[in-house]
């Protein structure tokens, strides 16, 4: 259990865009983040791909990340030109703007967070499969909604 919650969502924002090779069949992934309870700080959104032998959603599977100013009316970010495949989206409300998901002494998140597909975990984060969305080769744009839930609220 502790492995699953340890070091989760160490989302690497720098340099990830260059990992994505542009190709003719690529599609845009639009992520709509809902349920933010204030305009304080930022929203951090990361797109993950499946990585063998690694617990989702740690940093290993992150292929792209973006941050945006928080807005209780919703925040939309677009990840352009994703090759066809399975992806999972994780987002958190970075109220103190330090680009890290704050956690307590036992590594349980204390800032609001959410996943694609409305995936939720049981005493830990959900699995990649629960949060996975398919990006096909014949679509221009896929829209995913991530609802933020706040621990203890």
């Amino acid at each position: 259990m502790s492995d699953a919650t340890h070091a989760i969502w160490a989302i690497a924002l720098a340099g990830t865009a260059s990992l994505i090779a542009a190709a003719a069949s690529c599609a845009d992934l639009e992520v709509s983040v809902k349920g933010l309870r204030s305009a304080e700080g930022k929203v951090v959104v990361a797109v993950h791909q499946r990585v063998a032998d690694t617990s989702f959603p740690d940093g290993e599977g992150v292929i792209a990340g973006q941050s945006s100013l928080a807005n209780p009316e919703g925040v939309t970010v677009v990840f352009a030109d994703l090759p066809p495949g399975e992806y999972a989206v994780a987002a958190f409300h970075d109220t103190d703007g330090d680009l890290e998901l704050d956690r307590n002494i036992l590594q349980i998140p204390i800032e609001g967070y959410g996943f694609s597909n409305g995936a939720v975990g049981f005493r830990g984060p959900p699995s990649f499969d629960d949060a996975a969305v398919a990006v096909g080769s014949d679509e221009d744009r896929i829209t995913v909604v991530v609802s933020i839930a706040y621990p203890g609220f």
Partner: protein
Amino acid sequence: MAIDHLSRRAMLGALASLPALSGLGALAGTREEFNAGLSKNPHLLGLANAKMESFDSGMKKLRGHLPSGLEGVLWRNGPAEHERFGDRYTHWFDGDGMVQAYTLSGDRVTHRARILDTPKRRRETREGRRYIPAFGTAGSGPMSGPDDMNVANTSMLFHAGQLLALWEGGSALEVDPETLGAGKFKAWHPELSGLPFSAHPRVEKDGTLWNTGAIFFPQEALLIYRIHQNGTIVKANLLDVGPMGIVHDFVVTSRHIVVLLTPLVIDPDLWSDRDVSFLDAHVWRPAYGTRVLTIDKNQLEIVRRHELPPGFHFHHGNGWEEADGTIHLDVCQAPGPEFVTRDMREVMCGQLNFSSAHPRYSSIVLPPRSGAEINVLAPGPVEFPRIDSRRTGQRHRMVFALTGDEVDGKWPFNRVIRIDPELGETDGWTYPGHQIPEEHVFVPAGPAEGEGWLLGPYLDVRRKATGLNVFNARHVSAGPLWEGILPYFIPLGLHGTFAAL
């Protein structure tokens, strides 16, 4: 599982451990089943649902005079929504908490009660169903942390001007002292946010507050808190104590914190099964004995260990320490956990048996270098012990508690008593057969120990109403100085606290 500090005898015995009683057997745990039981036995009224989410009323005086100088608020808490959306919980400790305020002012007592609308309860309201796991009832909700199932239903604390509703498994919940509305969860420090803050903190005469928090995920650990009289955290420490289960209470002495770990411990395999409730994830391993941890108050580290025979308890009276380091404490201890694992389930299903062995008032001595001893002090069942809180951590000669005659088909407690922890019962008053006393809280008046009053709420099953008695704490046998009654009943509650106005 870290069991390196257990004795060899305990290690060998652990191989023959037995699972705790679990589940409901032939009982269905439905509302209809409970109502059928209630129609036959009015003493089950205390486990019925609160009729409303909020109550406000004056108390009607039945007899006597309110003592002059007795001015303040008794806040109480307890599970009160045993059913929601037609679904009944299967354990007394599961339901959403209801906070009550009895305000004593002049010659009047007024009462206010509110269901605590916790985040857990609001989620169930939005979904229109009861589905989140509870202490003794499994559920299906997401669990990002313990507060996702926090029902804030066990006790109240008023400290540094702040009123808090306490539960055992999660954070304290801030409560508005006037409206009794639920606020946010208390974070003593960002790194302690969302972690358990138990329901029996100990507050010393100078206002220093001590507490524990038993953590079961993502790892097992015992959290110790030291909080300044001004409400800020001074220090906290996370201890690996080995196999652990419910840790409900503890004591402090002048130099130490003493925690008893019973042999009712979490089984990791059961606990990883989301169809098993927290209570049912426990197993009874008597070979572990009762492990006694003595923790230094400054370092918050374990400095001594003792072992006592196996037993199960919720509550302590008090602890104190001699100059040579000998520690004394008292406990309401039963031979096993069946009164919580079986009886408190059956009562929710409409069967008031309480046939299991009840806790006995027992005195424990922990010499600094030799073995520990435990001796039973009073012959009958004893629960809900309270002291003159000004004696917290110091030698005490008075404990106020409930006892009873263990009559089949009735609640096991029908008498309020004063116990001298060195002699046994010294004073008491028996309630009429149609009344069930709840925890009696001491309120100080004069400077000497026990010089003051006892505030004793009770449930009158004939009137279907909750009442309040006021006793002279040093002459309980003289009966109530004042008695008042409400026009409604509140389900039997657990613990409370008094603050002078």
